[in-house]
């Protein structure tokens, strides 16, 4: 069994109003060192596979087909044995 940890983030070129709002709130908390905030999604998937390569392949496919929309999002993931 493998555990895939996936990060889906808004592409750099896309404005993130949600991140901006959170940034404003942090500024209100006087956390002046925070320069920028961007918000994404974290997804975990358990994958029934004996090989890591296969688990990575499944994760890649899930990201491409459903978990991320390439028009507006990028994704990155790691896969570890559990």
């Amino acid at each position, binding site marked *: 069994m493998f555990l895939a940890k996936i990060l889906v983030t808004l592409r750099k070129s*896309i*404005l993130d*109003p*949600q991140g901006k*709002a959170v940034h404003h709130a942090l500024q209100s908390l006087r956390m002046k060192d925070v320069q920028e905030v961007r918000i994404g999604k974290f997804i975990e998937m358990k994958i029934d596979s004996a090989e890591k390569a296969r688990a990575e392949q499944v994760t890649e496919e899930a990201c491409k087909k*459903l978990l991320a*929309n390439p028009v*507006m999002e990028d994704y990155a993931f790691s896969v570890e044995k559990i």
Partner: protein
Amino acid sequence: MTKLKLGVVVYPGSNCDHDAYYVLKEILAQDARLLWHKDSAIGDVDVIVLPGGFSYGDYLRCGAIARFSPIMEEVINFANKGGTVLGICNGFQILCEAGLLPGALLRNASLKFVCKYVHLRVEIAETRFTNRCKTGEVLHIPVAHGEGNYIAEDVTLRRIEENGQVVLRYCEADGTVSGRANPNGSVNNIAGIMNERGNILGMMPHPERASDPALRHTDGQKIFRSVFESFVLQENHQILT
């Protein structure tokens, strides 16, 4: 003309499905029917309507899960064969997720859910969805969405603008396209687009909410009546040729 057969797809979480059905069936006297998302067949229909709402609770991304509903395979086949498909609000999001329309819809720039009447400029009247309007005409139709901020990559945007695929744009009452008239931050004030072939329209505003005369606003009827008209034109064309 015989009544048009329009199938309104119902997803778990759709909430404008019945409004669309009611307007098509009761106000415009067509043969409308509801299609359950788990059906794998769309049956004998002329037009598919993907209604507004929050299919699958907007989980993951709006429309992302509905796009894989059993019925979608047939809807995509129908669309690819040139069948007329109208996606309203969440329906527009589903069409983008399904890759039937270019681009995507992001969270409104204001981060707020926007529910109000807007003005829409008809950019091109020679379409299946706007032939009962004039190019440049301003329609008064409400929006109600939290994620209607249309974006597309630069090349895609240029292409859809050059091809005349941008059908509706948010504008002021006099037709001026301005930032002030833009309710959600959509690039170029885009409110509705077609695919290249012109058989699929996605729009964020709700024509079905401005169609019943009892509500005093009926501009939405122009969109539906244009679709009906496109079938009449097609029929006449067949008779003539």
